[in-house]
């Protein structure tokens, strides 16, 4: 939709004004909204961080909820032992302080991550080589298992049997590896 003031930019601000019971709709772009005073100047610097910290805050338990006192107290004291960042500070700046923060705030992270990453909370990508072979093995086994389920659904049993054997051999390798570490 075109801005009704400058007729150039796309209208991004949509307002409904009611004056003396008469309703008018206004569609203008950011710039014209500012110039015409439809928007306060303070509102323009709404950054991704503001948006994020909004998400984090709304995750805090409702003050009317059952566990109010308990939850509230826990929120106050949740603090990363490694870098000293508190959950409140994290929620305010929208950034973690160090790797350990992810563990410290772990139980509060899922809802946040789900919103930011379209429902995802678990990593499914590259693994550093340093993490050792196990993680790679586990991932490989997962992939074969998915493949196996597909094959069974498609009733390709011969192929499925091969994949099953592959999974077994990888699993025994994994157990050996884990046994060796202990």
């Amino acid at each position, binding site marked *: 939709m075109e801005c009704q003031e400058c007729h150039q930019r796309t209208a991004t601000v949509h307002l409904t004004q009611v004056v003396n019971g008469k309703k008018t709709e206004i569609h203008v772009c950011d710039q014209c909204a500012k110039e015409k005073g439809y928007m306060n100047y303070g509102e323009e610097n709404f950054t991704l961080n503001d948006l994020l910290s909004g998400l984090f805050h709304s995750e805090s338990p409702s003050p009317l909820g059952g566990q109010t006192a308990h939850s509230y107290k826990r929120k106050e004291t949740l603090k990363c032992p490694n*870098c000293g960042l508190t959950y409140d500070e994290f929620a305010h700046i929208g950034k973690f302080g160090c*790797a350990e923060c992810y563990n410290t705030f772990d139980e509060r992270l899922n809802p946040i991550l789900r919103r930011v990453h379209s429902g995802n909370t678990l990593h499914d990508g590259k693994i550093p080589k*340093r993490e050792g072979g196990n993680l790679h093995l586990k991932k490989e086994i997962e992939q074969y298992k998915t493949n196996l389920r597909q094959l069974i659904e498609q009733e390709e049993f011969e192929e499925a049997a091969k994949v099953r054997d592959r999974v077994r051999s990888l699993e025994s390798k994994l157990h050996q590896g884990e046994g060796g570490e202990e």
Partner: protein
Amino acid sequence: MSLQQFMNEAISPWMKQEGPDSDIVMSSRIRLARNFSQYPFPIIASEETLEKVLEFFKDGFKETSFRDYKNFELIQMKDLQPVEKRVLVEKHLISPHLAEKSEKSATLISQNEQVSIMINEEDHVRIQLYFPGFQLDQALEQATQLDDWLEEKIDYAFDEKRGYLTACPTNVGTGMRASVMMHLPALSMTQQINRMTPAINQLGLVVRGIYGEGSEAVGNIFQISNQITLGKSEEDIVEDLHSVVKQLIDQERRARAALMNRSSLQLEDRIFRSYGVLTNSRIIESKEAAKCLSDLRLGIDLGLIDDIPRTILNELMVLTQPGFLQQYAKDTLSPEERDVRRASLIRERLQLENEE
């Protein structure tokens, strides 16, 4: 310095090459965000910690080479003048954020300027790799190799559950942002891009205009990138982006053909008027310049103008930005002075073509 010389130094070597589908895709980029496991993230780290990270790169990677990426030069932000930093930002070699936090931040840039490894940005390490044209797979493959190369020496912050740990929760997981810069004049002229954006957003991808404020795309140049970094593998993210970009390329080609069919005279008129403005104006604002350059480039792509190389849009979009104009002028310029300089630089550049 002559304009020819200045340009040779100003334009990154990789930008002078033409990649696949480069009539529409200007460049492909992969960025990986990484952190050292043992140090707090830059946002709260002490000066000493940041110094340690910086020293690590000075000792381990300064003047090293990796495959095609030779002689990494370590550039510390504190050693640069504001205009020099601005030029690096305009070349997309560093982020505005890195330029701002000057004291302990730096970048390692390969000789061909395809790779820039930002140090002490929002995360300790941000690996960034460009390819000309539409080459996302190659970019991912190379970025992964670079990442492995750094990983030999760095103990990355990584968690089995959450993946690569980053300062901002929007980057956690793969830490990867894949993006493609596209010139979409026909889709913007016909307003189709606005209709396509919501559908693209639903796939976890973002479309935004670059070189412009807010949603406005100056010069019809758009960046398409992934929003989601968690729960999908790097390959899947790149594949999704790849297929959307592929469709946008097809749609843009179709829209161009339709425009040529339905209103070729109007289109020709628009293109040659813009050409006229670029070759004759004495004062030109960046917005107008971008619009005219986009038209000129479209004219070249459609075969209406054949004596100017295609790379002119990429080149002049970079060179006519405030930092470059001031570097070329070797002086601080007011916006009005810049508009005059911009007009003369564009005229001079187009003149060069006629001489050859």
